[in-house]
């Protein structure tokens, strides 16, 4: 009797331990798909550790697989712990490079860089943020940033509101309450959307952009999948997500200048081209300051740009060479294609790619 009791308690304890351990956040580990069949391998060898943004997690898995296939002796690990964790790891010397949704502040240093080296930011991944909705029979709506913000803030509460109708003549808008959906976790997608709305409609989006949602009243959902789930399973919902996940939902064309631009990979890449590099950055650092308020034709300003943060010159020259090779691969036409297939990103434009290639080639091995 006593033993059965003990056994039960132990079983509960074990079950509890199992449950607790299953609470750990999903960590996307890049799997090491070493393909020994590759005959064109190089003499490179070593291990490269990257930490950073989860936005490039899916693309990184594909990049790692591609790079390791081409370079048999190299192991690349990318741990998608988050942008902040990535930047901290890079600065502290815990990661050879970082992936981040935001650039490293000017003047920050890393233990990994050689005496005359400094951290540089390279845009490697562009993802349009789609603003989506779920209404029967409507696939596309036109909106300006002020309208979008007012919907998110709960100031426009019905789909037949005059503010929406006036921008969409000829569309039969239903009498239906709007349920705005936002990311309940801290995310680069939220921060870039906030940045866009804050720049273009500062009178409405009054809060400073940050990764956490500032407004009450919307529906919070965890990560992109949670938002997709909440938007697509309910009628009258309004949300935002990586454009790659917006299939099947209605999307909003953003007002840029006098026209409305639906999201597309080209339009997203174009806004990065139309944007200047942040001032005061050292040679080779491509910290793009996205020009959200651009009025240029055919650009889609709600984009998330992820950067690779690396040293212009590494203390450990062999490490430097590896980073250089890896970054060359992921920013190549081939690498960008791989990311588009795996994660639905927008490939870098040729102009931007030329600039990046130049920066990488200046890196001292």
């Amino acid at each position, binding site marked *: 009797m006593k033993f059965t*009791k003990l056994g*039960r308690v132990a*079983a*509960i304890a074990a*079950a*509890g331990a*199992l*449950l607790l351990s*299953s*609470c750990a*956040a999903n960590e996307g580990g890049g799997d090491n798909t070493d393909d020994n069949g590759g005959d064109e391998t190089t003499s490179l060898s070593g291990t490269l550790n990257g930490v950073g943004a*989860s936005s490039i997690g899916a693309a990184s898995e594909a990049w790692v697989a591609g790079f390791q296939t081409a370079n048999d002796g190299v192991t690349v690990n990318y741990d998608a*712990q*988050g*942008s*902040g*964790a990535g*930047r*901290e790891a890079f600065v502290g010397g815990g990661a050879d490079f970082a992936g981040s949704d935001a650039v490293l502040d000017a003047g920050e240093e890393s233990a990994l860089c050689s005496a005359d080296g400094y951290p540089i930011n390279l845009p490697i991944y562009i993802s349009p943020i789609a603003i989506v909705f779920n209404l029967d029979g409507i696939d596309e709506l036109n909106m300006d940033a002020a309208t979008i913000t007012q919907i998110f803030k709960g100031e426009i509460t019905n789909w037949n509101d005059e503010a929406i109708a006036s921008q969409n003549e000829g569309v039969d808008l239903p009498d239906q*309450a*709007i*349920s705005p*959906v936002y990311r*309940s*976790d*801290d*995310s*680069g997608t939220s921060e870039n959307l906030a940045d866009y709305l804050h720049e273009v409609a500062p009178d409405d989006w009054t*809060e400073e952009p*940050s*990764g*956490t949602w*500032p407004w*009450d*009243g*919307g*529906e*919070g*959902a*965890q990560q992109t999948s*949670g938002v997709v*789930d*909440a938007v697509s*399973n*309910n009628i*009258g*919902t309004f949300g935002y997500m990586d454009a790659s996940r917006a299939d099947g939902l209605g999307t909003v064309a953003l007002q840029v200048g006098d026209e409305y631009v639906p999201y597309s990979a080209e339009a997203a890449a174009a806004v990065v081209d139309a944007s200047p590099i942040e001032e005061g950055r050292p040679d080779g650092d491509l910290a793009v300051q996205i020009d959200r308020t651009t009025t240029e034709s055919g650009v889609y300003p709600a984009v998330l740009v992820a950067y690779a943060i690396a040293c212009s010159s590494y203390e450990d020259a062999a490490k430097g060479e590896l980073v250089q090779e890896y970054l060359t691969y992921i920013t190549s036409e081939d690498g960008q294609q791989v990311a588009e297939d795996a994660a639905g990103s927008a490939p870098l434009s040729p102009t931007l790619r030329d600039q990046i290639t130049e920066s990488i080639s200046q890196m001292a091995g």
Partner: protein
Amino acid sequence: MTSETASKPKLRAQRRPADLVFQAVSTIAGFSILITLGLVAFFLIIQSIPAMVGELPGPADNFLDYVIPLAFGTVWAAFLAMLMAVPVSVSIALFITHFAPRKLASAIGFVIDLLAAVPSVVYGLWGMAVVSGFMRPAYEWLAANASWIPLFNGTASGTGRTVFTAAIVLAVMVLPIITALCREVFLQTPTLHEEAALALGATRWEMIRMAVLPFGASGIVSSSILGLGRALGETMAVAMVLSPSVVISFVIISSSNPATIASNIALNFPEAHGISVNALIGSGLVLFVITVLVNTLARVLINRNPRTGGAK
């Protein structure tokens, strides 16, 4: 030969190496619990100090403003869950121990134990995809017809991701813990007490009320506390189900719900850096303190009503 044995001290327990080793191992194991807990507390305190003295980014600029809504949400969601889970669990345990035929009882017991083995992520998926959609019409109805009750005085959530939905999921998650422990306690009721009650002409319900429940009272409390600990600390399921805001609100049908500490950490830690990390760890310290308080309270309650003392 005889003189030799007589000169030795009689029958002293021999210190066998196995005994010594076992004693050492169990002592170390016992202390390791205390040390681990101490180290966790130490880590939480050290790491949260910067957030408590410094200024936080975001809408709440001091630590108290930041953590109070979270602490409220944690306690509120757990309270709602317990409100649903405890009566159901106690009833299930009574059914298994006193009403169900033996075969059915063991089958139900087995299923209840299985519930405890479902990972919280799965409960989260279920809550997100099924329960929230299922409850949405109910929230809309309550908002339209029962808004004079403060609990329902708000705009109904358009997706059903409310604190009440989260509480339902939590209730299902703590149900097996409370049920399993209550069942063990109720089985321990002295048969003599039960038979005496029945012999005095009590109905079965009166027998349970007079013999089983008083005897099991402290067991119900302590199993509820174990369940409450689980509900307070549950992370993944709440993070997936709840639509969180920074509010203190008793409304259970709207989309502005107070977030819980654990789910807030899970949602925001991955992208947090600098002092935000300290603030999150600080909120973890608050959760730690809440849990300690809850457990202390349970100890006090149990000691006041010792196990056998209830049956009068």
